[in-house]
């Protein structure tokens, strides 16, 4: 059994984004989701600094530094791009206008709590838009490795790290499984075919519940 790569996790998350959905992708790893929209579907991407409907990165040397995303990387214009100021941008976020936000995580708890902004009191704290994004999008999904580099579960009963938001996550795409959060429980939807339920449970910090069939998590080589 080979766990999914980050690219494959991003691909899986992209399959659940509908045509025409308004989507915010968190800085870093989640940005990859944009590359894997299924043919025939076109989502409209929102970036907190004030662009809706931007295109991919320009070729090196063609950057315009007034045209960047929330990660401060250069993006491009597309037909239908809109610009707006920061208060309008976060009205889109908090006002329930986004369909999906896909974010990274340090920890996700079975009640939907998310910790993804701080690893503790050391260093310089920085939050950006993380605490805003977890509120307002109709669906808040997380993409993450199933366990940390030291093998500790990232899906837990209760987050130990500082929270970004309370009860906000509804689906988690991991390197091993797709897990929904429903009524304070993790509900297993898909898992890698070569992985037994018991193995997956042993790598998860809270009880995995079943609600109907568990599908195989099938992702192409990327």
């Amino acid at each position, binding site marked *: 059994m080979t766990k999914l790569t980050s690219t494959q996790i991003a691909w899986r998350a992209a399959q659940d984004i509908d045509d025409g959905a308004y989507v915010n992708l968190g800085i870093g790893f989640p940005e990859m989701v944009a590359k894997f929209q299924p043919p025939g579907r076109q989502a409209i991407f929102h*970036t907190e*600094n004030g662009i809706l409907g931007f295109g991919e990165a320009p070729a090196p040397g063609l950057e315009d530094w007034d045209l960047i995303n929330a990660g401060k990387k250069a993006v491009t214009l597309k037909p239908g791009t809109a610009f707006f100021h920061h208060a309008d941008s*976060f009205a889109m976020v908090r006002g329930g206008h986004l369909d999906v936000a896909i974010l990274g995580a340090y920890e996700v708890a079975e009640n939907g709590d998310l910790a993804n902004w701080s690893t503790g009191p050391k260093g*310089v704290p920085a939050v950006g838009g993380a605490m805003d994004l977890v509120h307002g999008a109709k669906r808040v999904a997380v993409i993450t490795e199933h366990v940390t580099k030291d093998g500790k579960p990232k899906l837990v009963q209760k987050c130990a790290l500082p929270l970004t938001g309370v009860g906000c996550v509804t689906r988690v795409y991991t390197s091993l499984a797709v897990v929904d959060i429903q009524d304070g429980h993790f509900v297993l939807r898909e898992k890698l075919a070569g992985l037994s339920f018991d193995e997956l449970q042993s790598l998860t910090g809270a009880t995995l519940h079943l609600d109907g069939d568990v599908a195989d998590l099938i992702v192409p080589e990327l």
Partner: protein
Amino acid sequence: MDKTLPDLAAAVAGIEDGMTVMIGGFGGSGAPIELIHALIDRHIATGHPTNLTVVNNNAGNGHVGLAALIEQGIVAKLICSFPRSADPRVFTDLYLAGKIELELVPQGTLAERIRAGGAGIPAFYTPTSYGTDLARGKKIEEFEGRPYVQERWLKADYALVKADKGDRLGNLTYRMAARNFGPLMCMAAKTAIVQVSQLVEPGTIDPETVITPGIFVQGLVEVANPAQEEDLNRANAVYPEPVQ
């Protein structure tokens, strides 16, 4: 009416010790580099202003613009959402040494606090930060069965903002995502000073396309071909330039 100012030095001449200054920009986009450098020049020449509270989304990058202002020791407190960048060493070192105060605010809350300051709304409720460390000590109230955090307006003595076109009445347009905090900060400051890439005659900007109406702007100065922070950093620029 003519809100244009003779030069950059005149544009920053009124900023006094201890004032709160909002500085536009998200990272480098929209950062009013020339206005910030003029403020640094004034501090080097006169020793003033000092002890500023600065409001910006970030905490500077490299050794130009906001980072250079912080490096001069002019900033006592920073109110921002994300004090990290490709090269955040100037702020990081001062913060870890306890030499600069940080008020960390979620980005959307920061924008709305500034907007509220400009709109005459002293407080509002937001779901953002509920149940987190950043809501500690703040009033919580339920609306329609959900908890919300009370946040207060944010106002400033001065705003330093970069816009694209401006006329002498203060009507402004912005360039792409460089708009970010500019329109909000112009509203929230007693005195909003704007560097425009192009100063135009009233009537040149189509009224349908005005983003900041002139009522929110107190002074303009033209800076043609303004520097981009990202370009300066890629060239390893330092402000002020070290004496050889």
